């Protein structure tokens, strides 16, 4: 978690701080999901409130990016952003599927932005020395 009381934070570039904040919010949602499904599969009374609250936080953390990136429209002429907004911050009852669908959209975006992508190691399936060298910048 970013500690704003720490002097070291002052010297850290804002970009790095925001990245950590986003990852923290992402982790919080995962934690809430775990709790929700634990209740569900234990046959306990389920409370979607925490999961919903954390999704809203993540949504607002990323709002500007989402607005910029999710511009594609569906047949009802609604943008992906508008659909996501409705899924997350609907005043009425929010369904589990809506939350999961919204989380999927955000996960895909975070992966596209290389924020949660970790499988970046170069793996070229070729036994050709020329192909291997070219992929590593020795063209």
């Amino acid at each position, binding site marked *: 978690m970013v500690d704003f009381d720490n002097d070291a934070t002052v010297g850290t570039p804002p970009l790095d701080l925001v990245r950590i904040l986003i990852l923290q919010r992402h982790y919080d949602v995962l934690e809430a999901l775990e709790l929700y499904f634990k209740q569900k599969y234990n046959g306990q009374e389920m409370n979607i409130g925490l999961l919903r609250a954390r999704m809203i936080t993540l949504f607002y953390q990323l709002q500007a990016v989402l607005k910029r990136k999710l511009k594609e429209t569906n047949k009802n002429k609604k943008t992906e952003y508008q659909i996501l907004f409705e899924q997350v911050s609907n005043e009425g009852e929010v369904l589990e599927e809506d939350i999961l669908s919204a989380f999927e959209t955000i996960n895909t975006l975070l992966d596209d932005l290389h924020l949660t992508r970790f499988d970046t190691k170069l793996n070229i399936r070729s*036994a*050709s*020395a*020329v*192909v*291997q*060298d070219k992929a*590593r910048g*020795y063209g």
Partner: protein
Amino acid sequence: MDKHLYKSGLPFSSVLELNIHDLCKRVHKKKASLIIVDGMIGEGKTTLAVEIADEINKFHKQPPIIFHEQLGIGGEEFQERLRVCYYKKLHSVIYDESGDFNRRGALTKFNASLNRTFETYRALKIIPILCLPAFYVLDKDLFYKGIPRLLLHVSDRGDKQGNFSGYPLSQLLYLKHRIENAIAKPIIYNYVPPLFYGHFKDLEGSRSRELEKYSIRGKLEILGKTEAQTSGLETARGISVMFGMGLRTIKRYISELSLKPAKIIRRTHYFERTQIAAIEEHIASAREK
């Protein structure tokens, strides 16, 4: 089934064929491509190099190589062969016993001329194949320029076949770095994983014998040259450097004194110390006049 070929009809694993063809395509784009075959003595470096050269010829729809056209033993012969290959439109040349092109002699005229050769040969669309016991003795300039494109390390030759592991340039640089800092150098080949492994078979009977004969001839010549140098014999070029005079002048003095060379190795005349002393006297008397 032919015992000198695998099921694929090749004398080596098909993964090597893929690599050779890729290098041939590369060289046609006028990019430098050099293959290094390294390994301990007697592991079959020259055999594999000949098989590779044959495959390059096959790619260009040419017959298998003729040793006295495409196989050079030592740097001087290699440069001659390179020229022959260019005029005969052949696309590969083998530089066997290429240990003479090493970084210890980095400042010698010979190394400089070979370096220049490797810088410029790409225009000829020829793939040189270097055979030497340890690739890391080669001049570092060669690696910085990205000229070697494939290293084939030959090891553990058995009765029926030899084995090789292939490294592209990107891995070759890691290997070189690690080997240079190691005490037990050959073991480093086990630490850097190669891109591919493969096997190769011996050449067909008569060709194998021909290669052996050719190779021994070359090795004897190298021995002869070394012997000449250690026994104090000197060439006309060496004498010209010794006295700081032109080669043509020294040759004129040799003919004026009617000196017969003490030894002739590959058309090169070697003179002994007494003859060199006679030339020195002749130079002194010429200066007095």
